[in-house]
């Protein structure tokens, strides 16, 4: 029986429900372990004149205060450009920026002592909003532009033309396990680090960089993390480097676990966007030209803002053919946390903008927005080239959308809602169908590689190591299923231990939805080599053809009969055959020119669509999602239960982004630049009761047309974008009361009430 394709429970499910699953802070601590806390900047921008640690150092149990002067290596960090100081020595760039690290005998004491450290700072003018940054031309990276055709000329000659400005909020990751790292000094200047990260290799590199040692001297290990969502892709390195600096200076094991409020104010979030658009279209709503300006709040450093904003540009088309298009992307520098990766990585923002444009076009023409979406879809053989000049070979959007519209009864319900809204004075309803097409692969082509190590032990049991991180998505479960099948052994005989930079080096982040695609293929390749050796052994012993030997369910079958897998393994060991193997995978077909922003950055696309129906109380602006129907493309599912989990979880997370999750920074006066929503008491992610009563998920019944692992498709990020249907359903309900409404995102109750009552 095949292990792949089965809804196996998560490999750690039993550990999760019994509390036995260890996360970084749960690993038993070594003797003498010290604890750290960060001293945070209280200025959005300022010149650091001096740090006075005397009060803190006088507290019994406080061991050390780490500042920039204590960094033996380079005081520079960042995933692409190292444009941040690990600990600033001259300039403070945002409120919440760690300036020093207190090391003490307990976490509680370290946090108390951190508050006793005084800084002398000369305040400097600060930029907090996108508008201020645009005005000041403050950027972390150069403006980028992608143009196809003649958008300006076509706009001038368009039958209809609309212009608009729209703002779209950011999002805090709110991984339930906050950032944490545990650094343990080893002999010969080495450092072992347990890190809650999506990117152990980058943590290794950044720690080595900070300590001024070679990469071989740093080992980073991660068994599992309590959620990442992109937040632990680049910025977990900072936490690990701070802990490592403390361990280096004190010579003791040092742990840094950020308090939730500190995590909020230190670490970066999803980029919020401002978009100006100018669109030309015909009487059917077909877009003839589009000119879009995207500006995002990147915070004080570049971090991953380059590729995030690139991906926003790449997804400005979503599923739609844009014959003449220009996208200009501003990467704004602000004195706020450095915005970073977050599920979708700019894709959701780009997609949100085009969905808003298309919806506005439909409203202008008095058409059903679905109809306008459908007339603009990419073609199969023509009108099938993206603005970045990739030919779309796997377009299933037209049939997927139509199937969902029919199954969810979209058109009937839309009419019923119109009738309801005419009768209902205070409660309005809205409905929307939005589609998605999401490009799969890191846009930086070189990142699309992965390695794995599969070890078969003498008793026939199998251990896998690969470069991917288990963060709840079920990556390890899927890789175990794939390896079990590749070797022909039962799923139960396969295990995965911690991801470890000393087992598989030079890995890419578990990000871009690529975890299974890359690591699954690499592990499969390793397993297939071992299987080949075992089959060859049996074939040569029995003098039969290699093709006559097969392995399945733990039995090796040859013309002479069946032998237990473990018996053949024992024979292979005696015959001095290598029972472990590495595996490697590099995604084929992709290429991309960063200068011209053209090529085939994506191996394939994932598709999906959702219909959402909402109710809205026009007196208070409160909304409730009543029903959601999703049709999503996961290719041939390796594990339907896990894939469904990604779809449901991604959808609800996206719904939170667009409804109740609102980041608020103080934009003027006292406290300028401080984040006022810095804890779950003020930042509201969805709870159980926000789940729609009707929540139906269907998989698109087709395999990946490309040779992805098991013919599956990546599923980590795309479902988040299905939630655009919720925002558009709310907009639909708002427009039923105020046809002039200009709803922004997130559609909090206050924002909805504003849109209902203000005219533009």
């Amino acid at each position, binding site marked *: 029986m095949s292990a792949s394709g089965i*809804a196996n*429970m998560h490999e*750690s*499910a*039993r*550990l*999760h*429900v*019994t*509390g*036995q699953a260890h996360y970084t*802070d749960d690993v038993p601590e070594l003797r003498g372990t010290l604890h750290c806390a960060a001293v945070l900047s209280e200025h959005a921008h300022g010149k650091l004149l001096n740090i006075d640690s005397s009060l803190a150092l006088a507290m019994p149990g406080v061991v050390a205060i780490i500042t920039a002067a204590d960094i033996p290596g380079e005081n520079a960090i960042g995933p692409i450009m190292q444009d941040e100081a690990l600990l600033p020595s001259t300039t403070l760039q945002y409120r919440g920026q760690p300036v020093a690290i207190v090391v003490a005998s307990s976490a*509680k004491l370290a*946090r*108390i002592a951190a508050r006793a450290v005084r800084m002398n700072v000369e305040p400097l003018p600060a930029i907090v909003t996108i508008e201020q940054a645009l005005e000041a031309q403050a950027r972390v990276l150069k403006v980028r532009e992608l143009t196809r055709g003649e958008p300006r000329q076509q706009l001038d000659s368009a039958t209809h033309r609309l212009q608009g400005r729209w703002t779209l909020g950011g999002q805090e990751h709110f*991984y*339930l*396990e906050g950032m944490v790292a545990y650094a343990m000094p080893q002999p010969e200047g080495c450092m072992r680090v347990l890190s809650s990260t999506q990117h152990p290799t980058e943590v290794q590199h950044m720690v080595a960089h900070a300590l001024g040692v070679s990469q071989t001297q740093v080992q980073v290990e991660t068994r*599992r*993390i*309590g959620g990442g969502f992109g937040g632990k892709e680049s910025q977990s390195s900072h936490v690990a480097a701070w802990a490592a600096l403390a361990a280096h200076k004190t010579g003791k094991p040092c742990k840094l676990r950020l*308090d939730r409020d500190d995590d909020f104010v230190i670490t970066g979030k999803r980029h919020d966007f401002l978009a100006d658009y100018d669109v030309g279209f015909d009487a059917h709503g077909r877009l003839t030209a589009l000119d879009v300006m995207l500006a995002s709040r990147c915070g004080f450093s570049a971090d991953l803002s380059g590729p995030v904003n690139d991906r926003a540009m790449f997804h400005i088309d979503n599923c739609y053919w844009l014959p003449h298009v220009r996208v200009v992307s501003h990467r704004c520098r602000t004195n706020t946390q450095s915005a970073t990766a977050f599920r979708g990585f700019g894709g959701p923002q780009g997609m949100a903008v085009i969905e808003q444009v298309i919806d506005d076009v439909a409203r202008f023409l008095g058409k059903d927005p679905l109809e306008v979406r459908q007339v603009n879809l990419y073609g199969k053989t023509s009108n099938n080239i993206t603005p970045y000049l990739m030919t779309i070979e796997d377009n299933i959007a037209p049939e997927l959308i139509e199937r969902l519209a029919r199954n*969810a009864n979209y058109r009937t*319900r839309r*009419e*019923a*809602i119109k009738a309801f809204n005419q009768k209902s004075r205070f409660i309005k309803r809205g409905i929307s169908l939005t589609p998605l097409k999401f490009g799969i692969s890191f846009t930086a082509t070189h990142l699309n590689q992965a390695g794995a190590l599969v070890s078969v032990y003498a008793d026939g049991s199998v251990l896998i190591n690969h470069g991917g991180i288990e963060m*709840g998505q079920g990556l390890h479960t899927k890789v175990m299923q794939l390896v079990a099948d590749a070797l022909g052994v039962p799923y139960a005989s396969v295990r995965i231990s911690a991801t470890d930079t000393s087992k598989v080096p030079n890995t890419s982040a578990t990000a871009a939805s690529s975890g299974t695609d890359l690591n699954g293929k690499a592990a499969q390749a390793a397993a297939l080599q071992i299987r080949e050796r075992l089959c060859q052994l049996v074939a040569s012993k029995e003098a039969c053809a290699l093709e006559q030997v097969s392995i399945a369910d733990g039995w090796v079958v040859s013309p002479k009969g069946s032998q237990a897998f473990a018996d053949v393994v024992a024979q292979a060991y005696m015959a001095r055959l290598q029972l472990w193997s590495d595996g490697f995978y590099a995604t084929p077909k992709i290429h991309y020119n960063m200068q011209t922003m053209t090529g085939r950055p994506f191996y394939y696309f994932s598709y999906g669509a959702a219909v959402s*129906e909402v109710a809205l*109380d026009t*007196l*208070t*602006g409160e909304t*409730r999602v*009543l*029903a959601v129907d999703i049709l999503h493309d996961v290719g041939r599912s390796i594990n339907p239960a896990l894939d469904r*989990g990604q779809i*449901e*979880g991604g*959808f*609800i*997370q996206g719904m939170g982004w667009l409804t*109740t999750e*609102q980041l*608020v920074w103080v934009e003027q006066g006292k406290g300028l630049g401080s984040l006022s929503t810095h*804890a*779950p008491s*003020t930042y*509201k*992610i969805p*709870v*159980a*009761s*926000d*789940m729609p009563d*009707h929540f139906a998920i269907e998989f698109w019944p087709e395999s990946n047309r490309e040779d992805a692992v098991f013919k599956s498709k990546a599923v980590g990020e795309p479902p988040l974008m299905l939630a655009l249907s919720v925002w558009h359903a709310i907009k639909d309900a708002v427009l039923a009361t105020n046809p002039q409404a200009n709803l922004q995102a997130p559609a909090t*109750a*206050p924002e909805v*009430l*504003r849109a209902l009552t203000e005219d533009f």
Partner: protein
Amino acid sequence: MENSKQNISSTVRFVLGGQAIAVQPARADQTLLEFLREDQALCGTKEGCAEGDCGACTVLMGHANETGQLQYQAINSCIRFLPSVHGKHIVAVEHLSGRDGALHPAQAALQELHGAQCGFCTPGFVMSLAAAFAQQSTALNAQQAMEALSGNLCRCTGYRPIVDAACQMHDSARFAPLPPEQKQWQDAQVVKQLNEICAAGTLQTANANWVAPRDPLEFAAFLKQHPEAQIVAGMTDVGLWVTKQHRQLGAMLYLGDVDAFRAIETSDELLTIHAGVTHTDAWAALEKHYPQLQSYAQRFASPPVRNSGTFVGNVANGSPIGDAMPLLLALDARVVLQCGDDQRVLALDAFYLAYRKTALASGEFVRAVQIPLLRRWHVAAYKLSKRFDQDISACALGVALRLDAQGKIEVARLGVGGMAGIPSRAPNTEALLNGRTWNAETVANAAQALLTEFTPLSDMRASAHYRAQALANLLVRDFHLARGETLDLAQTRQLAPLGAQS
């Protein structure tokens, strides 16, 4: 009193799973979570926020009731000071499964139904489900499941499989309950241990940082002598002073061990809720008389917070965004203030003087709240927040209208929250209701007045404009709801999708 004074114990004693614990904590403000994780190496219980908002730290707290049965509630261990579990049974996630490793139905259902992804929030969900399992012998419906889980955040699953697990865990054919002999503790033994601890007298930790009298007069006398002592009840607010602000509290006077403070008295006219009554019990008593408050009560924080926090604590705290006060002001509730042996009664309206400043004198505490049980009045309360469940109000409105047979408003009282530095009445608006017929025109005029009666703040929860506009609109909504219109989305979760086949 004499007896308890003779027996002062400085050792915190409780039962953890099946194990008797006796500790002298170095800090009286050490949290139960710190004790579990750092001292006991029981790391299944997680810290997600350290402020009682995410539920990753949820554990069960049990006590022996009058009939010798153990009763359990979910609480947040992250803001619960260790001495407050003296005499209690604490069950963490490690203690739920059987001696042979068999899973508790809550664990088995979550596991089988794919209710865990990253797994970090899972122990907290397990404990909230275990509390629901202990409290209810029949299957939960989806609504009950969502209520039971409103204090737990999950960022991975989208909740569907967790709600499924909640609704299916009572299916004993699939998820068999543990036989009593398989449990990690024996109930009778635990009850005996708890009774022994409680009989041993008053807990007072070394250097008197934690004083927990059992006698009400002893409590009052201590406060009179030590007016600087910090009264501690459920720790749902004071806990955060320690975990978030790292304040050094000095002497803490705990009222949770005073049995007399847990009293709820009902007469024909008055419901009296004493200082130690939790929100869970207080709102249940209120709902008995005012069943229409169920939705409002359910939106008050989350089950673990309601199980710890006290109703009177909310009133005494006097936060302008506390949810009890808008209702209590509309009901014309009174507070009973006590100093030593002396008690005085004050109208709640006169209790709040300025932002977080009350009429409490030095050494005085709020002994009880007296709530009129109005008959033939229209009584309602509404809350607005970004999220329906477990959120702090942007604004809230309590309404009490006495109507004559013709529908004329004889007396109108409105209580508002979130609109000023203190919870307040709305006299200008009330004046426009008093003596008028309760109809759309009267309500529209009153709403217009309510729009401008306050000058609220703009903050991260809502703009001043929203607060004013939405509060005024709540008065309109109240009028239409009273006429049977389906309006309040918080109360009408089950609006069916239109035209859907399913």
